[in-house]
């Protein structure tokens, strides 16, 4: 992966991370009063996938899960509308009705989530089947366990759909670890359904490695990642959690630091402006 592409991915990740930091700030100072599902720590998944899609000139149908701020932002969703959504305003991307978990945007082909974990699995498969358009379905490692997700994987494989299942695997269902819930992994499940299945880290290079087959055949990537904040809200479970964002920033050096500083300033301004409208 060349450095420019890596920086492009970092830019998107920085946009997402700085957005989420402001969300946390505004939850703590009670400007946001509804539940939030912050995606900080997981942003490199959406940032990398959206950069790959852009490079391939593909505008996929996107079926996000409840923890979807980064998905929305990385794929080009309007940031002001997301701020407004979290503030419960009619000018929000879901008219203030969806809140953090049901982000929707016709502009970027992103379909809202109904709160039934994993329902976006079969829904995305149905939309992909009916339109034959490239489709990405984002699931958490817990949502992926839903029986109807497994049924949908099987049918997507049978119909050879141009679909990419992304399991954002942070190893936690609220706070219950995967090892408590199951003794199998999604890669094996995918392969047993004859899907292309891989278990990888949220390192952009690892994700990119599989991109040649994106939308050419049904594929599932179980991407191991980390959730920095609580399942819902602004608390931190473990301060020692590996942070891909910090790691990439260090690796990429000054250019990344500058990008991040600029995003920090710009996003702070945007939030301030929107909050002043209240």
């Amino acid at each position: 992966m060349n450095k420019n592409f890596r920086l492009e991915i970092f830019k998107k990740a920085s946009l997402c991370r700085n957005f989420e930091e402001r969300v946390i700030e505004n939850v703590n100072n009670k400007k946001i009063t509804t539940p939030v599902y912050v995606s900080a720590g997981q942003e490199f998944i959406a940032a990398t996938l959206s950069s790959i899609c852009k490079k391939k000139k593909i505008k996929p149908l996107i079926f996000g899960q409840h923890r979807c701020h980064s998905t929305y932002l990385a794929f080009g969703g309007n940031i002001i509308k997301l701020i407004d959504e979290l503030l419960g305003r009619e000018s929000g991307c879901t008219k203030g009705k969806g809140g953090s978990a049901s982000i929707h945007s016709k502009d970027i082909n992103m379909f809202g989530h109904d709160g039934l974990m994993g329902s976006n699995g079969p829904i995305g498969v149905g939309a992909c089947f009916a339109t034959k358009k490239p489709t990405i379905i984002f699931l958490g490692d817990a949502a992926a366990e839903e029986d109807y997700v497994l049924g949908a994987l099987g049918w997507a494989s049978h119909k050879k759909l141009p679909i990419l299942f992304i399991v954002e695997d942070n190893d936690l269902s609220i706070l219950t670890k995967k090892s408590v819930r199951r003794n199998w992994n999604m890669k094996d499940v995918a392969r047993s359904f004859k899907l292309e299945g891989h278990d990888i880290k949220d390192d952009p290079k690892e994700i990119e490695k599989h991109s040649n087959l994106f939308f050419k055949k049904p594929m599932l990537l179980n991407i191991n990642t980390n959730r920095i904040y609580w399942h819902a809200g602004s608390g931190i479970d473990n301060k020692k959690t590996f942070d891909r964002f910090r790691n990439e920033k260090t690796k990429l050096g000054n250019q990344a630091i500058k990008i991040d500083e600029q995003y920090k300033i710009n996003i702070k301004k945007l939030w301030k402006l929107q909050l002043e409208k209240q």
Partner: protein
Amino acid sequence: MEITVRETIKKTVLKHLKEKNGLILGQCLSAVGWVGGTIPELTEKEGVIELSMADVANGGIVVGAGLSNRRPIYVIRYQGFNWFNAPIILNYACKSKELWNVPCPIFIRGIAMEGSIGPVAGSSHCSLYYRMPGVKIISPMTPKEYKLAYKSFMNEDEVYYVSEHRASYGNHKELNDFLSDDVDIIIFSISITRFEAQKVKETLEKENLKIAIANILWIKPFEIKDQWLRTLEKSKHGGIILDDDYESGVASDMAYQLMKLSSKKVEVMGLKNQSAGFSKKSDNLPPNEKEIIKKIREIIKKNVNYKNTL
């Protein structure tokens, strides 16, 4: 020769696939009988889509097809299968327009049948849908009514639950209301009980009882005609709702609505509060002519006794 409900459904589906770029999805569609002869014998390329046996996922797959504006027809061969099929339809398709301004029109063909077919497969289960927002429910029992259901669906962008009954497939007659200002009781009947209501009227009128009949086609929104209310209000002994779902669902709610709009009592008769099994002994069937007549006699007797005490 007059066309039956079965032929009407088959023609409707064919038109939907050939002229409207539609889809029909379901389990075992092409199995023996093609769902009681209601599905044209076409291929997947032509829009007949065989789903796997994963019921819950299938409901979601149909929702996805609905979002793509292919206006899928979804066949649920036994209405009780909705316990598995309905969750994603009700939680996504029915909310999508209101929450995200994205319509998700789906024409759900929920099919009822009766008789020794167990705890899940028998009867209608509209009440599962009835209590949720964002869905319209219609129960056509005649060719004209079926055409109306489809036409309404195509003119709107709503989720339609179409409560069918296999016993109506052979029917080619229209079922008319009988309304008058001078009746003993008015029967409001739903689905397959509408045929039974006709028999009850004939039998009781031989005993000089005057029976009105209101055929309930639109279940949600419940379309209460002015003439029905007038007949109910002027009736001697009020009304009775007949349903082939459990009494505590749609029928009770309709009775409540009718009683709010009138000064008369409306009773309810539907499936008994018991589980059905796979034998004649353990069937839980919709009210039949004999049972309905018995109930009407009880209502009249109770009402007369009550009036005598005043």
